[in-house]
């Protein structure tokens, strides 16, 4: 247990420290000050690439229209590549055509930065599809999130929102590309393959044929991790020994999951000019995530229940679905950080986690803001802040304000709409699939755990996460269509509404803060925000959790 605690502290403290300089760099790259040399030199290049429309500042509506238009193009290009992969190059293992509803689901999934995968990469995808369609979207979809956060922060700072096309290029070329390249090199050094040669057929020592799939994995996995994408090169994601071959590759990949989401908080603080406030937000997020990590490691230290009646040692935690090279606490730690951040990669099979451990990733996806996806995580937290300051303002009888902006009914309605749509997608989707053959016939486990598989799948789609209780037979037309639609709506509603809130706030006159203003930099605010997140975010899902993981724990764990 000592080693487990040491390992978690090493990863979290190390990443938190690294996020500080990265946040500083990101605010330089994403929001260069007027007259600032280096980053503004890039601005000219990005304007040249993007064309005349990129030279104008945009209001929130134009920003949204540009964003949606861009995403439409992403969708069309990816869909076309996947539909035509059998005639495209870089296909050494001769992968065939992809089914229509699977293509829709996969394209929606990667456009929405979700990376829910109803396919197994090494079985279905050519190298060209993996790189030019999927890995490409892992860059640009994450860049969209970062652009949105930058625009929201600029608006709250009382400035113009900027230009979407310039922001998305800054995020791609100045932030994601260099970070992914560094991570890719570290992955090469820790044993991850990077080859364009096709699979190898081996004759094992016992004389059996074994086909070993491989590919350009290191490049893919690096951006998969840093862009909170999570879509694996191989079906079983980072449990696969060629996607995550060693203890140290696992350390690199774990850090890569949370580094940019953490840095986003600092970047936000710098752009709005309130680093102390960012510090409070960072602390709240770290506490919410840390609580789930502790619980997860504790619950997973319980031995596999199914083995207790057999002559099998009971001295180690549950190892079903886990790899030995990562060490005991790596699985539950990753399970929480990957769902806290909307990443969705896995290094242990979540379906085989102990019941209460499996609930921790679900809670992460229900909250979806600590630290959340690249850019969009901090934007989700902004929605909770709007609701939080509104409630606090009502409680003490003052006009609610955030950073001097008066928060009124319209903004709170937008924020609540975004937050409630999350619960709507998850709970209604789960209910429909639980009572129809669409869901009931696709389960890999019986009883409450089967219900958990459905609940997890919709939580993952709505949180744009992409992990799954992978026993679920989700490669069916109903699952492909339903989760595809949920992923797209759940991606763009919480992007459009916050931009609308900022547009509405910044049209008002900004008040100067006085001693009567509710501080956003102290413990009271931190407590208020934490309470809002837990009450609004988590309690919505408590009845569903009771039917799934909690029921399973009570019924079967002795």
């Amino acid at each position, binding site marked *: 247990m000592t080693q487990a605690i040491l390992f978690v502290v090493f990863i979290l403290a190390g990443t938190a420290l690294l996020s500080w300089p990265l946040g500083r760099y990101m605010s330089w790259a994403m929001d260069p000050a007027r007259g600032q040399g280096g980053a503004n030199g890039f601005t000219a290049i990005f304007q040249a690439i993007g064309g005349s429309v990129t030279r104008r500042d945009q209001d929130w509506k134009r920003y949204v229209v540009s964003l949606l238009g861009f995403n439409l193009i992403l969708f069309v290009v990816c869909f076309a590549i996947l539909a035509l992969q059998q005639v495209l190059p870089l296909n050494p293992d001769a992968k065939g055509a992809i089914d229509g509803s699977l293509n829709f689901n996969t394209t929606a999934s990667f456009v929405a930065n979700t990376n829910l995968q109803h396919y197994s990469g090494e079985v279905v995808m050519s190298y060209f599809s993996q790189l030019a369609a999927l890995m490409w979207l892992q860059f640009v979809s994450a860049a969209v999130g970062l652009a949105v956060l930058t625009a929201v922060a600029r608006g709250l700072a009382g400035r113009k929102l900027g230009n979407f096309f310039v922001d998305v290029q800054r995020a791609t070329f100045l932030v994601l590309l260099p970070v992914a390249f560094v991570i890719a090199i570290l992955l090469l050094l820790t044993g991850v393959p990077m080859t364009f040669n096709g699979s190898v057929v081996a004759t094992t020592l016992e004389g059996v044929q074994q086909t070993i799939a*491989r590919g350009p994995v290191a*490049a893919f996995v690096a951006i998969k991790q840093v862009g909170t994408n999570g879509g694996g090169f191989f079906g079983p994601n980072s449990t696969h020994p060629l996607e995550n071959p060693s203890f140290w590759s696992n350390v690199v990949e774990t850090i890569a999951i949370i580094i940019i989401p953490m840095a986003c908080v600092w970047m936000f603080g710098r752009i709005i000019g309130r680093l102390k406030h960012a510090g409070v937000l960072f602390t709240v997020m770290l506490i919410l995530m840390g609580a789930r990590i502790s619980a997860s490691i504790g619950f997973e230290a319980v031995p596999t229940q199914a083995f207790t009646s057999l*002559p099998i040692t009971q001295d180690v935690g549950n190892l079903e679905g886990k790899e030995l090279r990562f060490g005991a606490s790596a699985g539950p730690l990753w399970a929480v950080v990957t769902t806290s951040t909307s990443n969705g990669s896995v290094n242990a099979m979540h379906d085989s986690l102990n019941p209460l451990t499996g609930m921790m990733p679900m809670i992460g996806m229900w909250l979806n803001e600590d630290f959340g996806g690249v850019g969009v995580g901090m934007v989700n937290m902004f929605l909770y802040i709007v609701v939080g300051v509104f409630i606090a303002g009502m409680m003490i009888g003052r006009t609610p304000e955030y950073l001097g902006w008066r928060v009124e009914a319209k903004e709170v309605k937008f924020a609540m709409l975004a937050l409630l749509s999350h619960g709507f997608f998850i709970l209604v989707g789960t209910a429909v699939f639980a009572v129809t053959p669409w869901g009931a016939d696709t389960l890999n486990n019986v009883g409450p755990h089967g219900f958990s598989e459905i609940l997890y799948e919709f939580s993952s789609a709505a949180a744009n996460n992409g992990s799954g209780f992978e026993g679920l037979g989700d490669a069916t037309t109903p699952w492909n269509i339903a989760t595809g639609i949920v992923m797209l709506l759940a991606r763009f509603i919480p992007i459009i509404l916050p931009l609308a809130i900022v547009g509405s706030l910044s049209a008002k006159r900004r008040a100067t803060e006085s001693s009567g203003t509710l501080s956003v930099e102290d413990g009271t605010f931190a407590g208020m925000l934490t309470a809002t997140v837990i009450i609004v975010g988590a309690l919505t899902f408590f009845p569903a959790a009771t039917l799934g993981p909690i029921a399973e724990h009570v019924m079967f764990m002795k």
Partner: protein
Amino acid sequence: METFLSSLRITVATMAICVGGYSAAVWAVGQAITPGTAEASIITKADGTVIGSRQVAQAFTQARYFWPRPSAVDYNSAGAGGSNKSPTSTDLTDRANETVAAYGATAENPLPAELAAASGAGLDPHITERAARYQVSRIAEARNIPADQLEKLISERAFAAGGMFTPEKIVNVLEMNLALDNVQTR
């Protein structure tokens, strides 16, 4: 219209740099600094036949070899996966029963849990040091060699994957079996 035109221009630029340039750069670095693992650590015999990958588990069922952890996909390295069974599932109990029988585990000599639990991808190349020692008597008997020799081999090959963070040492099953057969590789 302008929006789509700008989007297309950015699509071309990001595709060229983030897919073409980036993949080529990572590939080139891999070929230069880690040519072995970049190609997935393929092991070949002196005559050129491929035996497997150092990084990927392969099936072993004969008594004379160390056995890897159970695999839900029968060590299929072209379609990997886990059991995805709940730890409370009776399916796991049934599967573990077969494993227990194969090892001949008893209440006095219980099977290490890591040998009963299937790995995430079904391709875990490692077992723990104690799981290797658990198999010594079977292999010694099948090969008619002294157990000490096997114990010594395990001690030589066992390593702590994460230094101070992983007190339990592990061994690579395929490498151990190659050593047992004394196969020359290149």
